[in-house]
């Protein structure tokens, strides 16, 4: 049985799609057959981050409307054979989604995949609720600032009241906190909330802390998930998060201000 994981946040621009791409790729790199679904109908982004925008022929909504079958719409990743993408439609809106339609697609995917990653749109409306409804687990992406934390709290409330598991009284959706754009220097300066602050407010287990990194923007623009970048801190942090998602115990990195060596200081490198 496939595990359905929703990547959600409430607030926009905090790194949901980046995280979906990285976590999905990370699971695939570890040999798990994984599909990432873009639920952001109307604002297709995942294909860009994954670098497969030129290969989109059919999309999620086409499959929902029986205009194409799943195999036609699924795009196989060029870097890893275990990784597939189901792109969103650019020309439709969220009303094209129905719970029954989504369920049909998810149960078909569950036959062949180990992990189904649902990349949720921002907000708490229909699109976001569709993305989280059938989830077994949720990765709540949060930036270390107050409005993002509050929106995450809101979406956690929706997960525990409007998901299938909540409605049927099943075991609740397993929640994970992923803190992105973390900058230890700014935390020390008091400009950013610390990991402990966010953990205390949201009171859910921490899955990972992704340091603020130029590599993330670069990776997005090149269409290569940052987890493939062996030199980036952010890539390593996502690898750690994937390992924790699979149940491994790994110590948290990149939480402290990095001490610059003498040479770095002299050269003024960042």
């Amino acid at each position, binding site marked *: 049985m496939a595990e359905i994981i929703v990547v959600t946040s409430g607030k926009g621009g905090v790194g949901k799609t980046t995280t979906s791409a990285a976590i999905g790729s990370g699971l695939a790199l570890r040999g798990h057959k994984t599909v990432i679904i873009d639920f952001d109908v109307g604002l297709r982004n995942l294909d860009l981050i994954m670098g497969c925008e030129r290969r989109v022929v059919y999309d999620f909504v086409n499959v929902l409307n029986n205009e194409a079958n799943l195999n036609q719409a699924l795009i196989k990743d060029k870097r890893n054979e275990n990784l597939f993408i189901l792109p969103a439609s650019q020309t439709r809106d969220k009303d094209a989604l129905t719970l029954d339609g989504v369920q049909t697609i998810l149960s078909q995917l569950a036959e062949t995949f180990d992990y189904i990653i649902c990349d949720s749109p921002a907000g708490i409306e229909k699109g976001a609720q569709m993305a989280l409804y059938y989830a077994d687990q949720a990765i709540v992406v949060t930036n270390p600032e107050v409005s993002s934390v*509050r929106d995450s709290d*809101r979406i956690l*409330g*929706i997960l525990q009241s409007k998901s299938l598991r909540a409605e049927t009284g099943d075991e609740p959706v397993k929640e994970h906190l992923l803190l992105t754009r973390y900058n230890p220097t700014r935390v020390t300066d008091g400009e950013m909330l610390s990991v402990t602050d966010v953990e205390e407010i949201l*009171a859910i287990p921490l899955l990972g802390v992704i340091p603020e990194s130029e590599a993330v923007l670069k990776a997005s623009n090149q269409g290569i998930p940052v987890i493939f970048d062996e030199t980036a801190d952010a890539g390593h942090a996502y690898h750690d998060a994937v390992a924790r998602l699979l149940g491994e115990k790994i110590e948290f990195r990149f939480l402290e201000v990095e001490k610059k060596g003498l040479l770095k200081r002299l050269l003024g490198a960042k």
Partner: protein
Amino acid sequence: MSDTCFQLKGSVVTTFILELYQFSLDDFTLQLKEKINQAPMFFKQSPVVISLDKIDDNITEINLDELLTTCRQFNLQPMAFKCSHKRFLDAIKATGLTLLSKNASRNLTKTPVTPEISSSIESTDVKENTQLHKSKLISRPVRSGQQIYAEGGDLIILSQVSEGAEVLADGNIHIYGTLRGRALAGVKGNTSARVFCTKMEAELISVAGHFMLSDSLREKVWKQPAQIYLDEQILQVEPV
């Protein structure tokens, strides 16, 4: 504090009624002495109302001064007369003590045991019992945007209440965690309702419509275990 010197309040005081059937100084003194000796401390400085309502119809005159003096000798404090017979009114007036009107005296004597009061006491007992049954237990965090209402009873939360969340109850609210959101106890006007929490960081607290914002709480019990209740229409914040 305001400059007010006093406040007038309605109140019920328990007193003895001395119901006089007939009066002769010697007999009265003897009988009173006997009575008082049964429990001298009990009667010490007791206020007493002397009732002439049940006096023998053939008696037309009583020496009230002797009566009062005797009472005071035994440490009773006559405070008023009760009398519906016109023939004694002038004498009562002469003593300087109050004559209780029929209505007032009825209230005074009967209030503690009127059926109305006792029935209302019974009904509050019943309410308290049903409140116990109706209390609502929440064991997960109450998140931003969520609203939880315990109708007709207490609300018990075994987790945190996030900023932007609202918890309401007709009775008390107990929060075994951090309260960052809003807590409104006694929303239907129960002024004896209270809010308890193990860590106070609330946006707003209200008891029976009297509310307090985080600014006022910050000075007192911020991030500490606290309780909030209503005392004389003023919200009291105390550490627990």
